[in-house]
């Protein structure tokens, strides 16, 4: 199995980096929407390969980071209910909510388990008929189809003790919200590869049209990312912003029809509360009425204390691309992966965790 090496070829990478340097004459600010891209850029040292004219900003594409504290607090409250097993993806258990975390709840006796696939959560429900299994459904358009499939599977197999807390969020509406706010001037967007596998590239067309901002869909290997940046710089230099795909092996303009049908069957679009951004209309997925028996929020109403944000934490600014992690006063001093204050330091897709983990020798010299 050799599917990565071709996309990490150092000669090709250096050639492409050189081409970008040649092409780039004026300063540009690009946002990589997706936390996976932030990590790849820092992990492979792509920042150091780019010319000084190209500035990269991280965006809100980290599912854990954009989960509102109120939603996280509700998940923690559910975890404390008797005979409830909470299942969730990876990092979610470490994120501090307003008063506690799922990890803390687990230490206090709650049954909290990590799964890699939502179908495993359905399997867990079948294996534990006396308990209720609640899946905390976070993520973007990437995870929504599999969560929808798990609900359909639970209905088909009559698994009545499986429930989902639907917190999925949608990418294009939040991009519009960020651009509307005008807080950060952007010239181009590195569009998320995995999300675009599902939704295709058409949903980004409004960005060059209404905002004059270039959009290129990127994969996650170093060559993918540099190819994407090269195309963005080329568009900006020419003054011809448009939507392009630099990840053709994964993304078609129309996306994945089957996955979108699954989403549409189970979910309807509604408002969503984004950490650091607030409530964005039409940017979230809610479980449709006909599947409400699987909707954890309908089945387990819990009363909550009002949510609160940790003092001094700039995760909200980092999520909106207004600040880099290095501009947060807590970064590395008070907020570390061992004792995270905000979600961006916890998640393997969070910008602060990436800046912390992939520090360069130059950063050491300058600090």
């Amino acid at each position, binding site marked *: *199995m*050799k*599917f*990565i090496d071709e996309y*990490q070829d*150092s000669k090709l*990478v*250096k050639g492409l980096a050189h081409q970008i340097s040649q092409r780039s004459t004026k300063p540009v600010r690009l946002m990589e929407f997706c936390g*996976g891209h932030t990590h790849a850029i*820092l*992990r*492979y*040292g*792509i920042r*150091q*390969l780019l010319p000084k004219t190209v500035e990269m900003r991280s965006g809100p594409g980290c*599912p*854990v980071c954009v989960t509102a504290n109120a939603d996280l607090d509700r998940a923690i409250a559910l975890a404390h209910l008797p005979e409830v097993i909470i*299942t969730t*993806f*990876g*990092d*979610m*258990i*470490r994120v501090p909510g307003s008063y506690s975390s799922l990890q803390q709840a687990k230490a206090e006796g709650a049954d909290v*388990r*990590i*799964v*890699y*696939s939502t179908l*495993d*959560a359905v399997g*867990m429900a079948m294996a534990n008929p006396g308990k209720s299994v609640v899946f905390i459904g*976070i*993520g*973007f358009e*990437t*995870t929504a189809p599999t969560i929808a499939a798990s609900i359909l599977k639970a209905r088909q197999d009559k698994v009545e003790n499986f429930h989902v807390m639907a917190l999925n969020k949608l990418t294009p509406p939040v991009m519009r919200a960020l651009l509307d706010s005008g807080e950060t001037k952007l010239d181009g967007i590195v569009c998320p590869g*995995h*999300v675009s596998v599902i939704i295709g590239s058409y949903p980004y067309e409004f960005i060059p049209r209404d905002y004059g901002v270039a959009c290129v869909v990127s994969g996650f290997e*170093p060559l993918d990312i540099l190819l994407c940046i090269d195309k963005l710089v080329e568009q900006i230099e020419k003054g011809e912003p448009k939507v392009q795909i630099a990840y053709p092996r994964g993304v078609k303009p129309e996306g994945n029809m089957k996955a979108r049908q699954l989403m549409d069957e189970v979910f309807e679009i509604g408002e969503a509360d984004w950490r650091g951004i607030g409530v964005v209309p039409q940017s979230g997925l809610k479980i449709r009425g006909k599947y409400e028996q699987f909707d954890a929020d309908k089945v387990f109403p819990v009363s909550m204390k009002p949510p609160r944000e940790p003092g001094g934490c700039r995760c909200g600014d980092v999520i909106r691309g207004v600040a880099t992690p290095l501009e947060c006063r807590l970064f590395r001093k008070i907020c*570390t*992966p*061992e004792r995270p204050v905000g979600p961006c330091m916890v*998640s*393997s*897709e969070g910008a602060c965790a990436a800046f*912390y*983990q*992939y*520090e*360069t*020798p130059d*950063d*050491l010299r300058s600090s």
Partner: protein
Amino acid sequence: MDDSILLAHGSGGKLSHELVEKRIVPLLANPALNKLDDSAVFEASGRLAFTTDSYVVNPIFFPGGDIGKLAVCGTVNDLAMNGASPLYLSLAAIIEEGFPLSDLDLIVQSIKKTAEEADVSIVTGDTKVVDRGKADRLFITTSGVGIIPHGVDISGANARAGDKVLLSGTIGDHGIAIMSQREGLKFSMTLKSDCAPLNKLVSQMLDVSLSIHCLRDPTRGGLATTLNELAHQSGVGIAIEEDKIPVREDVRAACELLGLDPIYVANEGKLVAIVDAADANKIVARMKKNIYGRDAAIIGEVSAEHQGKVTMKTRLGPSRIVDMLSGELLPRIC
């Protein structure tokens, strides 16, 4: 019920004696153990190394090993990492009520086989049984004693600028093999854990050179964490090259899929050696002749720059700091 562990097996009475004398001692037999005295008595002279470790792996049987093999290898390797030749081990088991006796037999067999391979004797032990739910099936603690040969001085604090950093083989095999078996993460692959006793490899390395300054097995936290420990303990910088680190293709693929970095994934049959540059090639050549060192490579060197830090030249050229693992290794979301 004759086929599973009962609380009475831990009562100290007849069933306890039967368990020890019929199921455990005959397999692990040696003069010190056979006496069944309160402590093992043996002769030893020279500088001794002494270590202990507990094993709580889940699942207890995994591709390429089990908790018994791990409990022997782990303690043998801890002794070997100070250059000691392991001699004697203790074995203490905490068993959950209801644990199948057939599984216990398999694990004792595995302990016997691994101890034979490593050439160590289990000379003393203990079993306790706890109520169902008070332990997760089976926990094992082993302690070990070994003798450090004359002229050997190995410590995590001994790395010097200019030394070479050696790795005995592919990284991440154990962690990915275990992860592929865990509930909620199951995926099918043919990968086996690298769990192995490394004492013979170490003694062969010492045969060709006494200029081995540090040895450590990169278990939990992986290669990155071990190198950080050594850099910190010795007050030096360590610079490695990503390209030089051997990683199996299937491990790399699984890591890509799960969003993990193999340098943070656990190993149970690998070692990192920091050695005098002049002897590095000679030591690697000897390692390659041992089955547990056949993929050995020089992966970097020790420098006086960036003290206490590990830097890695990435495949694409730029360098970055490699920190210790923080928290648990968790798969990414999308």
